[in-house]
């Protein structure tokens, strides 16, 4: 490749990168700008809207609840999906397509339709068991299935699952040990991806919580916006940045983990 062509390519890459960055950063920048406006046209910049976040009780509670929901949903997703997928691949291969279909189905059903279907169950849960917002984790589990499935599926496809599990079994490992000491350490990137995608989705979820009358982060932002637009935008920016940081962790840490546990070669 000639030097001139290389330079042109680099310029093209830089332009594409700048456009992509602008696409994401300009709205966030505008939101940040809005959240730092003072009251009145000539008022100086202020961080009062940001400072109000911790002192707005419903907001702090909603942030905590959303973070808890993100963690619980990710853990439940891994506990349910990973052993199921491993078992299906090893013992019930005929069910593979059915499991895939079930897991991907939430992609085709709008969240609002899901809520309508699931609402009677939540009413029953709140009347008979608990009205804690953490019960939302069961609904969120359905929402995250497609993304988590795809990620875990790619991770499982990248290892010789059958041989590794059989080798571990023949060496005396029970199924729990096989999962924790052989399967999980060999697909850290896929597990991290699935977890962080689930967490990001839960942190940005609005429809389920609002229609089921729970106050998560997004619902709280919407409430706060009625009384303080600046604070609500500040929280929205913060949550976007938080999700962005999560995705950065996903791409960098995932890459590192992959390097630390490379595949064998022939």
């Amino acid at each position, binding site marked *: 490749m000639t030097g001139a062509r290389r330079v042109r390519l680099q310029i093209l890459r830089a332009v594409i990168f700048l456009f992509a960055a602008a696409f994401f950063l300009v709205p966030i920048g505008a939101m940040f700008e809005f959240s730092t406006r003072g009251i009145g046209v000539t008022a100086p910049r202020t961080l009062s809207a940001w400072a109000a976040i911790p002192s707005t009780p419903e907001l702090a509670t909603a942030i905590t609840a959303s973070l808890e929901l993100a963690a619980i949903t990710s853990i439940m997703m891994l506990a349910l999906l990973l052993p199921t997928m491993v078992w299906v691949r090893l013992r019930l291969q005929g069910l593979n397509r059915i499991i895939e279909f079930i897991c991907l189905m939430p992609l085709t059903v709008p969240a609002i339709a899901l809520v309508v279907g699931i609402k009677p169950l939540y009413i029953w849960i709140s009347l008979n068991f608990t009205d804690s917002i953490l019960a939302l984790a069961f609904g969120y589990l359905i929402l995250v299935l497609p993304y988590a499935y795809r990620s875990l599926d790619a991770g499982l496809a990248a*290892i*010789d699952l059958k*041989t*590794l599990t*059989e*080798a*571990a*079994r*023949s*060496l*005396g*490992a*029970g199924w729990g*040990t096989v999962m924790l*000491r*052989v399967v999980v*350490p*060999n697909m850290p990137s896929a597990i991290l991806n699935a977890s962080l995608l689930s967490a990001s989705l839960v942190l940005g979820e609005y429809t389920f919580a609002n229609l089921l009358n729970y106050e998560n982060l997004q619902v709280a932002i919407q409430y706060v916006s009625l009384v303080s637009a600046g604070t609500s935008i500040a929280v929205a920016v913060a949550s976007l940045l938080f999700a962005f940081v999560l995705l950065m962790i996903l791409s960098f840490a995932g890459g590192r983990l992959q390097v*630390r*546990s*490379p*595949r*064998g*070669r*022939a």
Partner: protein
Amino acid sequence: MSTTTRSAATGVEVRLEHLRRVFAGVVALDELSLTLAPGELVALLGPSGCGKTTALRLVAGLDEVTSGKVLFGGTDVTTLGANKRDVGMVFQAYSLFPHMTAMQNVAFGLRMRHVDEQERRQRSGEMLEIVGLSGFADRFAHQLSGGQQQRVALARALAIQPKVLLLDEPLSALDAKVRGRLRDEIRRVQLEVGITTLFVTHDQEEALAIADRVGVMNKGRLEQLGPPTTIYSRPATPFVAEFVGLTNRMEGEVKGGEVIVRGARLPLVKPDTPEGPAVALVRPEAVSLASDGDASGGPLVGTVIAVAFLGATSRVTVDLGDVIVLAQMPTSQASANPAGSRVRLTLRPDPVLIARDETAAAEA
């Protein structure tokens, strides 16, 4: 070598009784009965789909029997899970845990048995030494060659001092040179440790070279079980004769306890073979060859159409007009008769087997 490793040198008898495995109506293994003496290495040999790997997996506990029993040292282990059978297994595919070093891989089974860390390290080190990889303890699987990975897998299988060692085509992914070397090494280690071993392969050379006894399998059944020399020189069935080594199919007639093939009288492996037209299975090395003008030459005259150099020996393909015959001989002798030359063949009177089934089928 340490005492820990030597203490493993106590092979147990392994008995398979009428083992049967049916997959969705298809019989993969049909009434396999086989006894391995303590410390013996038995190779199961057969084409793809003959049931040899199924048999191995049933012994390992990685698959469930439809009927029959597996006994280790007289104890019925048929219903025990794979993790409780105390077997060591080396797989066809590279099976080292990619996230662990060679040392950690070898120590894995010991860890499952709650062996303390110091002993784990000691025994793993010893096993790596036995397979000649003590300098590779800290390498990950991707930093090892295929042959080295299989040697680590062997060390890992032996480290737990299993009752039985199961080898599922462990050499098939390796190149020819490494395969030969590792095959000899497996045999050396197996003899050193004295462990009862079941070796599954589709490579006849491998099976004949390594095993105390070879079991030839076909369509889920054990066709013949015996020492390698018997399997080769006295095949029990036409399938064994044709699967193990090369054979010439030559038409003849069974008469008076022998078969007459183109004037040559050859003894039969089974003297009670019914009389009549038959196809004799003649080994290439039982065919000798001389130049057409040579007075010592045999009665069969043909033309050499190809000479395949195999190293110390060569295989000569001769066209007799109505049939192609293979002859194997020292290369020096074969080179005297290049392609195109006229030659005379003699059939050595080694016992031959009759492909009776196919003859009967052809007649029908």
